[in-house]
């Protein structure tokens, strides 16, 4: 791939897919941008026209918006902290040589195969339910009042459910990183007098930084758009307590049938995602270099 003609041929070969992907991205983005400046309500389709930044202003003036923004970031941040910390601990644990290691690993990975609405339903009805849930049974067993998870701590409950779903992913990536660490390095550290904690702090953790970065970047992409778990459990409530930006956009589009406002919300979400991506890459990007 170094001669002039082979480079040209390569570009020609790649061109169709690049063009296709560009169209794939540009057309929806342009349409969303177009609608975000239009009056477009499905309940009154005859009233149309340009409204300037009114759709955006509605979001910024809505008291729910800032809460939704906070909730979105809290969801991403909370799940990231829980999955990375627990993921490292579980990876360390299942990396130990035990009997039935293969089966154990399948068990750990299993939650990832449960689809989001099903996972949320399981948690809502089998664990968090005030009458039938396992948690309330445990609470009653101790003579305590059952905790009303989805009413009293809706956002924390959602963070808990989403963490459960994403923990296997984090664990798996971190486990492979752990397995690629040469045992001679750990033995050398042991000879050098490093305690188990020091070996973790100075050898294992630095070795895993790249994998941790990958986990954070990939999960952030997916967590910014979390919707199904909220829709299945809290419906964004009580009130707006667990409304996130995607859920708020959904409410404008499907419940209020206001496509213009929903499009404006979509553009705000794109901008938010880019801001998050910028700070993530600035903070973590150098971990991906050699």
């Amino acid at each position, binding site marked *: 791939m170094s001669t002039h003609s082979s480079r040209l041929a390569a570009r020609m070969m790649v061109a169709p897919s690049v063009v296709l992907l560009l169209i794939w991205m540009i057309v929806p983005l342009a349409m969303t941008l177009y609608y975000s400046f239009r009056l477009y309500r499905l309940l009154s389709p005859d009233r149309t026209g340009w409204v300037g930044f009114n759709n955006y202003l509605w979001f910024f003036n809505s008291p729910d918006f800032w809460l939704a923004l906070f909730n979105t970031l809290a969801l991403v941040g909370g799940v990231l902290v829980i999955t990375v910390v627990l993921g490292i601990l579980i990876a360390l644990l299942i990396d130990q040589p035990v009997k039935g290691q293969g089966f154990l690993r399948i068990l750990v990975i299993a939650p990832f195969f449960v689809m989001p609405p099903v996972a949320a339903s399981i948690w809502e009805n089998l664990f968090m339910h005030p009458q039938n849930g396992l948690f309330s049974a445990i609470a009653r067993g101790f003579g305590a009042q059952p905790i009303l998870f989805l009413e009293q701590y809706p956002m924390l409950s959602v963070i808990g459910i989403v963490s459960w779903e994403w923990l296997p992913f984090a664990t798996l990536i971190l486990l492979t990183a752990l397995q690629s660490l040469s045992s*001679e*390095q750990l033995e050398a550290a042991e000879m*050098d007098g490093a305690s188990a904690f020091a070996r973790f702090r100075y050898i294992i953790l630095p070795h895993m930084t790249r994998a941790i970065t990958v986990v954070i970047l990939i999960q952030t992409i997916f967590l910014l758009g979390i919707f199904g778990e909220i829709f299945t459990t809290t419906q964004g409530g009580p009130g707006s307590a667990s409304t996130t930006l995607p859920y708020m956009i959904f409410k404008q589009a499907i419940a209020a049938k206001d496509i213009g406002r929903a499009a404006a919300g979509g553009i705000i979400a794109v901008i938010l995602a880019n801001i998050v991506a910028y700070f993530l890459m600035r903070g973590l990007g150098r971990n991906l270099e050699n």
Partner: protein
Amino acid sequence: MGKIQLTKVRKAFGEVDVIPGIDLTIEDGEFVVFVGPSGCGKSTLLRLIAGLEDTTSGTIEIDGKDATNLPPAKRGLAMVFQSYALYPHMTVRKNIAFPLKMAGMDQAEQDRRVERAAKVLNLSNYLDRRPGQLSGGQRQRVAIGRAIVREPAAFLFDEPLSNLDAALRVGMRQEISELHQSLKTTMIYVTHDQVEAMTMADKIVVLNAGRIEQVGAPLELYNYPRNLFVAGFIGSPKMNFIEGAEAAKHDAHTIGVRPEHIAVGDGPWEGVVGLSEHLGSDSFLKVAVEGIGTLTVRAPGEVNAHHGDRIRLAPAGKIHRFNTNGMAL
């Protein structure tokens, strides 16, 4: 300060006895080389001394104190690994200082020791680089630096030169020997290369299948091998073994003649040259001798014999005699 005594040390992995039982004394300041074919248990023995493996039974004493159940860090030994095992995310300086940092030494003393080690090993210009930016020989030196800053009772080397190219290997071999001359610390060195063993050791321990075949100074092993295994392992090219009628003439089951102890010219043996390698200083000939078999001959460089030539050979040096059990007579 660095005397190591092994008593009936045994190591089994499950059902398999890797080391059935070894008694060995390593004197303070000695350069001891464990040599043997791969899988002979030499690395396992080193790891037992280091404390990276638990002994199944037997005792290991370091400086007269029982160290059998001490963790590696408490034994006061330093090890250089085959893969160097440098910490890739730390600079050379931090790599070398790591054991000192773990020991809780104050920063000024750490810096002083790192600078001194770097000077000895010609690493002063590379202290702020990472291992990934160094050549193989430099990495090797960093690994040695990390070992010497601790001022250990003994150094353990696990095939440290096997990842280097031939020219560098000779250089590093001399550097390690010089290091031993200046530090006068006990060193245990594991290798499968008998040239490294012969050139570096004060004392060679030849291992085979987890057993010690012979312990001795390099020339002692060369001149007086105790059995067929040691005779065949020490010396390059390998010693020729002759059985049958020719051996019976010397009242032995097997006789061994080193290639360098066979003269070309007139003699009792006649054969056809198969392969000839002319190195300039020497010529290695493989000669098929009637009634004896193929003999390797190390002839002087000027001997001009080629494939198909008929030549006569005579033993011109010590003939080693072995009984039916392969033990020297």
